[in-house]
């Protein structure tokens, strides 16, 4: 009875983790698409690098990034099936560069805060 009203620690952690990951996933996807990929291999490549992303989130994200002009795509037959290949556009390259700068700066700042002695 007593524990039922308390929010679940695991739930809280999961929510915070998802929030933390959301922005970085876009960075990982854009970074990986400096080379050409179709959805399935992109997901595998990201997973191999240690960034798991589920299909349900990946495909809509790719579509959105393409709508925003950061990615280009084309349908091509490979391994007997029609596949949609994505790659970073010229504009995407510029935006990625700026995002990486921001990422590095933010990372350094957060790192400094976390490493610094608590005041």
């Amino acid at each position, binding site marked *: 009875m007593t524990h039922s009203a308390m929010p679940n620690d695991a739930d809280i952690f999961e929510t915070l983790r998802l929030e933390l990951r959301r922005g970085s996933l876009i960075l990982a996807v854009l970074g990986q698409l400096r080379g050409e990929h179709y959805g*399935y291999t992109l997901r595998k490549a990201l997973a191999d690098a240690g960034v798991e992303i589920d*299909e*349900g989130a990946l*495909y809509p994200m790719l579509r959105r990034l393409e709508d925003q002009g950061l990615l280009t795509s084309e349908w091509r037959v490979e391994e007997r099936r029609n596949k949609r290949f994505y790659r970073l556009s010229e504009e995407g390259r510029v935006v990625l560069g700026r995002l990486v700068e921001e990422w590095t700066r933010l990372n350094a700042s957060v790192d400094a805060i976390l490493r610094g002695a608590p005041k």
Partner: protein
Amino acid sequence: MTHDLIDRYLAAIARDLPERERTDIVAELRDELMSGVEAREEGLGRPMTEAETGAMLVEFGNPLVVAGRYRKTQHLIGPQVFPFWWAAMKATLVVIAAVYVILIVVKLIGGGALSANGLGSPISTMVFAFGVVTLVFALIERFGDPQKMARWRPERLPPAEGKRASRFELLTELGMGIVFLLWWTGAIHFRDVFGDIGLQVEMAPVWQRFFWWIVAYLVVELASNVVALLRPDRVQLVRWMVIWRSMMGAAILLGVIQAERFLIVSGPAGKAQAIFELWMRVGLGIAIAVFVARAAIEAWRLRQDGLTSRASA
């Protein structure tokens, strides 16, 4: 067999996708699923069973959720608009609740069957208002400019201290004002309020003489409440409006109280007329006193405000 399940799954997703992109998205998802099946089957060294395919699809996600992620609109009212929706909703519901509480009180006092024509049941009115407010804010979310709505001016903030009516009070007054105005102008009727004891009560002609004065009073009252709600920084203006309307109320009732009769009561109870008239006269006297007191209080507060601001300046 397993492909049949995937076909059905993709068809279910397709139904909820925008038509323009449907073929494209489904083709891409099919490739993703088939690549997954092939990789799994290669690992297993045998075709996947239907149960395994089913489990894979469950993992992939509910068709509605999968399709929903492709939609541009992901929420009816987003976090930027939500606080405004919430504030508007609270205000609307308080006004409606006030209106119905007054109607119920009138009904209890009267004891008879209340028929306020033109008003639905409290539940249906609340649900309807909820729908209208939500629709308006959903349209703002979709087509409006939430940034613009969030723009505000610090100088319009109400003073942190000083006696002011709370929002709840203002909304309740607004609700009461609306009921009264609707009743006075004939938009709603209270019938048979005293029907149970066989009395018929009508307003005496004196009220008719002051009809437009009373309408004007009610309009000023509603306006002062609306101003107080929307521009809580205009403390002075609101105080002047309250003083003005209270003086107006007192003046109207001073005119009314001169009359010989306020109500025309007809029915079997012979003495009722005299008793009603006495009650009314006492009631009107109290109302005049209340109006004058209200005007005096506001005038005093106006002076106090002036002193405080001069002191802090």
